[in-house]
């Protein structure tokens, strides 16, 4: 009897854990927003100049779509994404796709969400059976997609990848829309160089070591510091995307009495933790103040800090991929091919002295 009861409870526990596993993707995602898109390290030369700035285009095309549906016939798309609860980045990404692929814009979209590869593959097979025209895919895992994508190709379905790349032959998909983390870092470092400080004494707060976002964003800074004598790293520490750890690391530097004038945090959370430590020690920060604060991901609250001139810079990690996908679909519909296949998205860096409320509203995630 007792054993049975225990077994029952264990079952409940396991189920609970499973449920948690599904729901708590947010807890495994080390940070909302950051590090999400797998870096397209083999990124092709930026074709992004050709692509118009994402959101403006989005707004524009929405309007045009309302007046004149593309070709009178709706395009059927099946969209397979990760769970929108996974992170703030993913939520914004999903919202963007949902608001773009609508009947008004000439699309009939079905969505499937999962953080598990096998479930995503099942969803893909279902979409193929349903006879969609396009399969849009943000794969949970890079491997295992060959067969199902071959099936899609045989059925004459076009495959577009967004946000994450996969380990499959390039011929199996038509285009891939990704972020370039290294470029994000370069943009940020270029901005910092433009500040023309006499000396750069930098506290570098890194993300979880080895993640694509960390590698991309660290790389640019490391290179710069290596090249210039007046760029110094006061400390370079991983705070694992964690605000609390960032706060303690910065606190430790403050306690040591070492001088610093830049905080380069690889995501907004860590920047916030750093700022909390600065506030406590009465060290001024922001535009025209003692310490320059830099973050990434463009969380809405972070951009508001920029607007209030408390922070100086925030680098974007673009979740607004719908217009890029639309562009590619249009090209294919017109009988063309997407070339090069890898589309690197335009990603902005915001400067506190230039940011507007409009930017906050349209880019904040």
């Amino acid at each position, binding site marked *: 009897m*007792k054993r049975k*009861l*225990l077994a029952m*409870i264990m079952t409940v*526990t396991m189920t*609970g*854990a499973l*449920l*948690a*596993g599904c*729901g*708590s993707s*947010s*807890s*495994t*995602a*080390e*940070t*909302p927003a950051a590090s999400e898109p797998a870096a397209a390290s083999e990124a092709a030369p930026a074709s992004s100049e050709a692509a118009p700035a994402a959101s403006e285009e989005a707004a524009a095309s929405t309007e045009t779509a309302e007046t004149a549906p593309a070709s009178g016939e709706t395009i059927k798309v099946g969209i397979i994404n990760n769970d929108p*609860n996974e992170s*703030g980045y993913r*939520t914004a990404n999903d919202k963007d796709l949902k608001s773009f692929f609508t009947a008004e814009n000439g699309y009939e979209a079905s969505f499937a969400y999962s953080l598990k590869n096998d479930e995503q593959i099942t969803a893909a097979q279902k979409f193929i059976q349903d006879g969609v025209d396009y399969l849009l895919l943000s794969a949970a895992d890079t491997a295992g997609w060959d067969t199902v994508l071959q099936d899609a190709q045989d059925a004459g379905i076009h495959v577009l990848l967004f946000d994450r790349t996969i380990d499959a032959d390039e011929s199996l998909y038509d285009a891939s829309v990704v972020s370039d983390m290294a470029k994000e870092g370069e943009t940020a470092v270029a901005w910092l160089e433009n500040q023309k400080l006499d000396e750069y004494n930098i506290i570098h707060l890194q993300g*979880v*070591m080895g993640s694509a976002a960390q590698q991309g964003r660290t790389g640019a800074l490391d290179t710069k510091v290596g090249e210039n004598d007046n760029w110094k790293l006061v*400390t370079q*520490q*991983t*705070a*694992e*995307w*964690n*605000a*609390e*750890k960032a*706060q*303690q*690391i910065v*606190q*430790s530097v*403050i*306690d*040591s*009495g070492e001088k610093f004038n830049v905080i380069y945090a690889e995501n907004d*959370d860590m920047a*916030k*933790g750093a700022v*909390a430590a600065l*506030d*406590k*020690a*009465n060290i*001024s920060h922001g535009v025209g103040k003692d310490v320059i604060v830099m973050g990434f991901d463009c*969380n809405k*609250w972070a951009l508001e800090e920029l607007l209030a001139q408390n922070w100086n810079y925030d680098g974007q990690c673009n979740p607004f991929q719908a217009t890029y996908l639309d562009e590619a679909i249009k090209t294919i519909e017109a009988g063309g091919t997407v070339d090069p296949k890898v589309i690197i998205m335009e990603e902005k860096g915001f400067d506190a002295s230039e940011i507007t409320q409009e930017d906050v509203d349209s880019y904040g995630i």
Partner: protein
Amino acid sequence: MTNLKKIVGKQIFIPIAALLILILFNLCADPSFFKITLGTNSAGNPVLSGYLVTILDYGSELAILAIGMTLVTAASGGQDISVGATLAIAGSAMLKVLCGGATSASVMQAPVIVALLVGCIAAMLAGAFNGALVAYFRIQPMVATLILYTAGRSIAAWINNNELPIISDSAFTVYGGFIPGIPIPTPFFIAALCVLAAWCLLKFTTIGLYTQAVGINENSARLNGINPEFIKFLSFVILGVCVAVAALIKISRLSTINYSVIAKDIEMDAILAVALGGNALGGGKFNLWASILGAYVIQFLTTTLYKFNVQSDALPAYKAVVVIALVVFSAPTVRAKLTELSKKKSRSVQLAGKEAA
């Protein structure tokens, strides 16, 4: 000699010895570690700063959690590993109240005390859930609390619809920062209040005696009219209260919450604090004050490591060394050897003394 032995035999000697080792190490490596400066903050109020102040500051949440964890350990003979997740739940509930349900607020929408109460209720419910599983369903504490350990952070996210609420009211930063005019960090005062409350609890109720009785011999306790299930249950609920208070400090520090990383792995530090306090992790006799001191010693270690620029993802490795040292020194075989050694030594000292005489 006997005096020394008496001191060494006392439980609180363990955290004190660890503290002394750390102090000595820092003295040798860099005495500036102990420098404390009085400055002023942006509001023009005096504040103290320095590594020691940081230790008092950041060690406080851990000290508060150590109180609850000590009771849970003593009563149930096991540990609660869901502390971090429960803290996320309590913090999430507090922020929901403080922001009035919105995602951000520039002014607190409810008094802090109301938020604290709501957080307490949330954390106590979580504690009650754990406690019921442990006490009434007789599931091992580690296994029982594994449920919330895995699910808790999702629940925390669900409370705020997966939004990350932010409160930018400077009045709220007081709990994780400084009270205007007082140069010592507030968390230290909150911890002191909690310690006082714990002292009162031990002084004005019989919980200390009951908890130890249950932890040492449940059968005897039951035959003396104590309800062991209830005592275990109670210890988890008390831990819930501690978690809620710690959550207030944590969310006040950053004025926001990140469900996936807030108080990450803090349960391990809390358990380590209990162990470092010389308490048996198998339950029974406990010394609350030693656990609290243990918590500050752990923060001392953390701060020291940060000072020497040890990579923060390597910190657990150093803590592991502490755990190994503790386990080795508390092992019966090692203890027996040590007593033998000290006996020999005292004998030889006596002999030497005689010869000298």
